[in-house]
């Protein structure tokens, strides 16, 4: 199934994209997606444990299931203010 992954800040820097479409297995969870990306990118692996995930702009847990056409955001620790 197709999903869109958006990366921000340090996650965008190490992954080399800000928005990208991925073809993933059905019922993949947020945690599995992060692990998949970490296994394909050493730099991202370094920060993967710190990443929060949002699905369609709602923060979610690692076991949240991603559905077709969802937009998944990779959110490093925030630093506003």
């Amino acid at each position, binding site marked *: 199934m197709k999903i869109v992954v958006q990366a*921000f800040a*340090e996650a965008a820097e190490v992954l080399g994209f800000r928005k990208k479409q991925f073809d993933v297995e059905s019922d993949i969870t947020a945690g599995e997606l992060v692990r998949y990306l970490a296994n394909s990118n050493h730099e991202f692996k370094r920060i993967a444990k710190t990443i929060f995930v949002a699905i369609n702009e709602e923060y979610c847990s690692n076991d949240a299931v991603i559905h077709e056409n969802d937009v998944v*955001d990779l*959110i*490093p620790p*925030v*630093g*506003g*203010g």
Partner: protein
Amino acid sequence: MMQCTLQHEPIDVEALLAQCTNPSDGAVVCFIGRPRNIDNGREVVYLEYEAHQSMAIKELNALMKKASEQFAINDCIVVHRLGRVDIGQASVVIIVTSMHRKDAYAASQYIIDELKKIVPIWKKEFYKDGSQWKTG
């Protein structure tokens, strides 16, 4: 009145304060966050902010709503900069009004504390010899 804005331009604090006209509000608390020129002993030249803009606005609106439920406040304005912010400029401005000062102070503190924890905004510190993403 509740409003939140993300903007690249410098923040006009006086113009924001002028919007708070409720005559029953005896307290107006204005918090201004600014970049420090020294962080952990390193000289900071400037900061750069980026945001997940639509989600940040959504989270800020939810945060202001929670603040208004917990504290007896009336006007609430949050403005955060994006892009380059030089030392001495405001990176964030939070204005809260209430009938009495206690609620405005408490709500202001609550909003900046939560903003730093959950709103998807990031800052990178730039030094003379490098740069680094910073949290909190």
